[in-house]
């Protein structure tokens, strides 16, 4: 990381450790406590959630923290927000830090929308007067003028989120701590969130964003860290961190997805079919994807091999040997190699399924999630499955 030395540090975390005491059974009663003493049993164990975490956030950074569920990123967030006390290590915050672990903290269903705005504001550290100044713009942004004197319990959940979010974006702090929960809600609301993030970025606000959404990381952040098992696994550019995260997830979904055998289903005609990845798992779209498919048959059929590459559950590429006029050749060899140029695929995590058919295209066997790979980088387009060479022409008539 090439941190510019002249930018002041907004947040400094040094050798942060945190462990929790996990009770084996419910340990919230004196009875259980006495039983445990009697049995000479330790009723708890220590779980180390964060191990020696250190990083710096400079002023104006849009800093991403990514990691899987249970990696310790929520604990880190709560430590930064001062909700938890560090086991050891140091957190240094320069300026006021406004955390949004959840929207609408302290909202009370029995109070009116108006009363909740002031209560929530007080919890965030704003006086009644300050909130009065913000009140009109909060109500306006939430588009809930008509409901302000109704109790919150009569609001739909969408309305509650809207109100909470409207308060949140009026909060002024030097450092904003945003949890991914901000990005829940319908598409229109998500768009509002993203517009808000965009605005924060433009205003050079210091923001720490915790999320699962790698496209958001690539889009907004200028620095990021990946947390795994309570340690920083990778830190650097958002592209680098996001790609590592995608790759890790691909690997583990493979490992936890009952391995290759579990996803394999064969008819009696096929004895076995195996997939072998030849290329690396992290690829660029200038690379090629190389793999082999081998099979053994029980019956004398004319096999057709096929594969499909999918992203987010949607099939992007599908090919088979019959369409490629290869059927008769592979019957002899029982193994075939395949090469695919990746230039038209956009960055992201991909999954490969393979299948074997009879000549009449009836399915004889398949392996789901036989292989995975990640295409790195975000240099070409923002979204979409494929990159297409459309041509723009400014010289049109009229």
């Amino acid at each position, binding site marked *: 990381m090439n941190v510019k030395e002249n930018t002041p540090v907004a947040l400094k975390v040094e050798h942060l450790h945190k462990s*929790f005491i996990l009770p084996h059974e419910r340990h*919230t*009663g*004196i*009875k259980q*406590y006495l039983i445990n003493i009697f049995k000479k049993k330790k009723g708890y164990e220590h779980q180390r959630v964060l191990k020696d975490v250190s990083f710096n956030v400079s002023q104006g950074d849009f800093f991403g923290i990514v990691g899987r569920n249970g990696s310790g990123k929520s604990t880190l967030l*709560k430590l930064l*927000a*001062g*909700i*938890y*006390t560090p086991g050891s290590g140091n*957190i240094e915050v320069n300026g006021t830090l406004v*955390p949004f*672990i*959840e929207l609408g*903290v*302290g909202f*009370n269903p*029995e*109070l009116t929308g108006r*009363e909740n705005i*002031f*209560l929530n504001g*007080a*919890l*965030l*550290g*704003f*006086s*009644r007067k300050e909130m009065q100044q913000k009140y009109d713009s909060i109500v306006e942004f939430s588009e809930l003028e008509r409901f302000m004197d109704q109790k919150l319990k009569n609001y739909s959940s969408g309305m509650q989120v809207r109100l909470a979010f409207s308060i949140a974006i009026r909060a002024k702090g030097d450092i904003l701590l945003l949890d991914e929960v901000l990005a829940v809600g319908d598409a229109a609301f998500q768009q509002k969130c993203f517009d808000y993030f965009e605005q924060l970025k433009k205003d050079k606000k210091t923001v720490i964003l915790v999320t699962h959404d790698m496209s958001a990381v690539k889009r907004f952040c200028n620095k990021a860290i990946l947390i795994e098992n309570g340690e920083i696994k990778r830190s650097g550019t958002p592209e680098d961190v996001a790609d590592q995260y995608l790759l890790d997830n691909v690997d583990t979904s493979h490992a936890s997805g009952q391995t290759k055998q579990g996803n394999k289903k064969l008819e009696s005609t096929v004895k076995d079919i195996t997939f072998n990845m030849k290329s690396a798992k992290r690829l660029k779209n200038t690379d090629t994807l190389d793999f082999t498919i081998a099979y053994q048959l029980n019956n004398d059929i004319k096999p057709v091999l096929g594969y499909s590459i999918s992203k987010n559950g949607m099939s992007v590429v599908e090919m088979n040997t019959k369409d490629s006029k290869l059927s008769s050749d592979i019957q002899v060899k029982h193994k075939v190699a395949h090469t695919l140029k990746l230039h038209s695929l956009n960055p992201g995590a991909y999954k490969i399924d393979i299948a074997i058919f009879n000549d009449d295209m009836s399915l004889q066997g398949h392996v789901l999630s036989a292989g995975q790979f990640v295409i790195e980088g975000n240099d070409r387009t923002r979204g979409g499955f494929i990159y297409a060479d459309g041509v723009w022409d400014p010289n049109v008539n009229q």
Partner: protein
Amino acid sequence: MKPSLMKISNIISRKNRILLRELVVTEFKLRYQDSVLGFLWSLLKPLLMFAILYFVFGQLLRIGSDIEHYAVYLLLGIVLWNFFVEATSQGLSAIVARGDLIRKINFPKYIIVVSGTISALINLGINLVVIGVFMAINGVDLLATAPLVILPILLLYVLSLAIAFFLSAANVKYRDVGHIWDIVIQAAFYATPILYPISMVLERSATIGHILMLSPVAQAIQDARYLLITHQTVTSSQLFSGRWYMWIIPYVITAVIVVAASIYFRKSSKYFAENV
């Protein structure tokens, strides 16, 4: 991060004052929501309880006939006791009840406990006005010592707050505390000279009478009665006059509870978010 709890400068800091105010107002609004009589219940409850107790103890059992203005004397005792019970039990559940909040935002935890006791204090204020009215009806002479009644009430508040701090923190760890406190309160009610004059106990057993008067709650209630209603009241300073080491015991108990509760609360409040 310096431990900032209990620092005077922090208690009166603007931000915390705002939050405290907002929490007290909210609590008050919510308490009598959807009830027809609303906050009148704050008045009616002690009055009705007083009516029952006065009927049973004053009229049927003829206790306290030797004390002038026994009805007001009894009412003041009940009101102060109710304040003690309300402040401590509100405090007891304060942290656990706001667990949701504590897990999501960082703010000084003592504010929640204080806000619970302040609602109790507001109720006490309302009830003291009622007592003023009763005093007028009963023809109680306004004693020169009456303004001093603020002192035992203040002492009782400090004690209640300290107990509330201790119980709220202990309740996070062991939820049994609530049940235990219910029983303690029940026993303490009968061990405190509220319904009966302490002179009744002293006649039968001087030792037990003296022991009962060591309680800071008994001391505060008796002092308040002495200052506000009748100088016939037996106070602990009279009872232990000449024996300063006995006389200071109620104050020492309060002081010890305040110090111990502050230390305990301060230590455990750091971990409320993970334990609650």
